[in-house]
């Protein structure tokens, strides 16, 4: 354990005098040892958060996060950075409320500016069943202290002046909106790097370019470690946090999980001067976006239908999202696409997350995250609790793997179909 180098204006000035040649490494690259108390697979958001809370809350520092590629290069490198808690179920809302709160405190907690910008999300509603769905969320969210308010169409347009489509003669006229003031965006890379720096300072290790080839079980069936491209690493506890590739790894331990891997559309526009200062979510049209501090519109859209481990998107899925966007924001016709990609994730049979110890004793998974970026801090907090204590954290009790034994689904989708 060592003290984290303090980042501040003062340190910037001090190092600036030295032409910045004196900055220490944000994290070290210690030699890989052959055994740890806990090995976490995947230095993405959930893996890093889990390591962070294992060290911080449970004092477990003999831990290693192993990463096939580069730290922060998982889905956390490819998501659309929306943090919110407007869910529908008793099982889900408190979890996301906690996650939002942990995100809000993160910059100071990690001494690393995650640029957390609590800028409110506005749902643009164009269909009565959707409004009913959102109002249903509002009442149940209120129980857990998450805010959701209905606003009129006029108010929606006042708060999003660029929303000039969806008028009375439009294919789907805007009928109103919902305001979620808890919602925020931040800087995804900063979250990964901030956690990595803190883990390193507390004595945890992060090993990049360390690809797990298989999970290794002992004679008693329990987990014994992981076989990597750099050799065998022993650990009595192994946590898999590799969104998208979960089944690829768990199959090596003989497990079959109710997950399939899918691909989500994401793209950014060229950077332009500030135009939209809230997160705009259009559930009926099927897209959402926010404008980054750099000025780019960061846009997320529909999933591709088939299973996919590609990090590319299909043209027709992309076009669906773009034309939906243009129907509400016709001025964006002149805006230009700058970059596009697909983020992949694994989705469970009931579309809710799975955080549990598997049938292989000592092997834990965190998976099934659909929009898992917002869940990173609470996911890490609760998985660390489970790994360290062997008991589920109260915020994640519903997200077990056991629920599938009785098909006891936690279904976030509500009754939104038409009459």
């Amino acid at each position, binding site marked *: 354990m060592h003290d984290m180098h303090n980042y501040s204006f003062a340190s910037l000035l001090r190092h600036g005098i030295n032409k910045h040649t004196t900055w220490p490494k944000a994290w070290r690259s210690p030699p890989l040892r052959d055994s740890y108390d806990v090995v976490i697979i995947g230095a993405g958001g959930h893996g890093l958060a889990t390591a962070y809370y294992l060290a911080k809350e449970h004092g477990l520092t003999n831990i290693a996060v192993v990463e096939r590629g580069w730290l922060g290069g998982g889905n956390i490198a490819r998501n659309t950075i929306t943090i919110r808690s407007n869910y529908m179920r008793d099982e889900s809302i408190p979890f996301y409320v906690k996650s939002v709160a942990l995100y809000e405190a993160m910059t100071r907690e990690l001494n690393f500016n995650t640029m957390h910008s609590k800028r409110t999300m506005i749902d643009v509603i164009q269909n009565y069943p959707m409004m009913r769905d959102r109002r249903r969320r509002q009442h149940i969210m209120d129980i857990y202290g998450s805010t959701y308010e209905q606003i009129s169409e006029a108010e929606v347009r006042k708060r999003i002046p660029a929303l000039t489509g969806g008028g009375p003669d439009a294919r789907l006229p805007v009928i109103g909106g919902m305001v979620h003031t808890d919602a925020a965006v931040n800087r995804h890379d900063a979250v990964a790097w901030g956690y990595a720096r803190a883990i390193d300072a507390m004595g945890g290790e992060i090993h990049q370019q360390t690809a797990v080839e298989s999970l290794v079980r002992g004679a008693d069936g329990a987990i014994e470690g992981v076989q990597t491209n750099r050799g065998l690493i022993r650990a009595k506890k192994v946590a898999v946090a590799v969104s998208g*590739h979960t*089944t*690829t790894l768990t199959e090596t331990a003989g497990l*079959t*999980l*109710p*997950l*399939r*891997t899918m691909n989500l559309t994401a793209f950014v526009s060229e950077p332009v001067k500030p135009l939209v200062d809230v997160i705009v979510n259009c559930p009926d049209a099927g897209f959402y976006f926010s404008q980054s501090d750099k000025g780019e519109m960061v846009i997320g859209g529909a999933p591709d*239908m*088939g*299973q*996919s*481990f*590609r990090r590319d998107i*299909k*043209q*027709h899925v992309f076009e669906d999202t773009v034309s939906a966007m243009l129907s509400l924001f016709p001025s964006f016709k002149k805006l230009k696409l700058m970059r596009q990609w697909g983020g992949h994730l*694994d989705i469970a*049979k009931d579309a809710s997350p799975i955080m549990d110890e598997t049938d292989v004793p000592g092997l834990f998974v965190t998976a099934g995250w659909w929009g898992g970026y917002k869940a990173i801090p609470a996911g890490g907090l609760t998985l660390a609790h489970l790994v360290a204590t062997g008991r589920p954290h109260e915020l994640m009790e519903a997200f077990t793997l056991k629920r*599938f*034994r*009785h*098909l006891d689904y936690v279904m976030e989708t509500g009754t939104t179909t038409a009459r």
Partner: protein
Amino acid sequence: MMNIPCPFCGPRNEAEFAFGGPVKPHRPDPNAVSEVEWTQYITTVPNPLGPVEERWWHVKGCGTWLTIWRDTRTHDIVEGPGDAG
């Protein structure tokens, strides 16, 4: 936009098809299998990093349900459906 080989129509744009999911093992007799076997059948699908056998419905074309092997890493169709009438 993949180009999916339909046994009746020949290769067609993916937009003419509806995705039917990966092919699961044949539906077991629900009265002849254990709870675990049944839930396993119901909740899990093959999710390989590589070729997966899956179904597509040529809904905007000839109506055929067809099966292909598609590589989930690349979308390459590594094995097409056999001929049909």
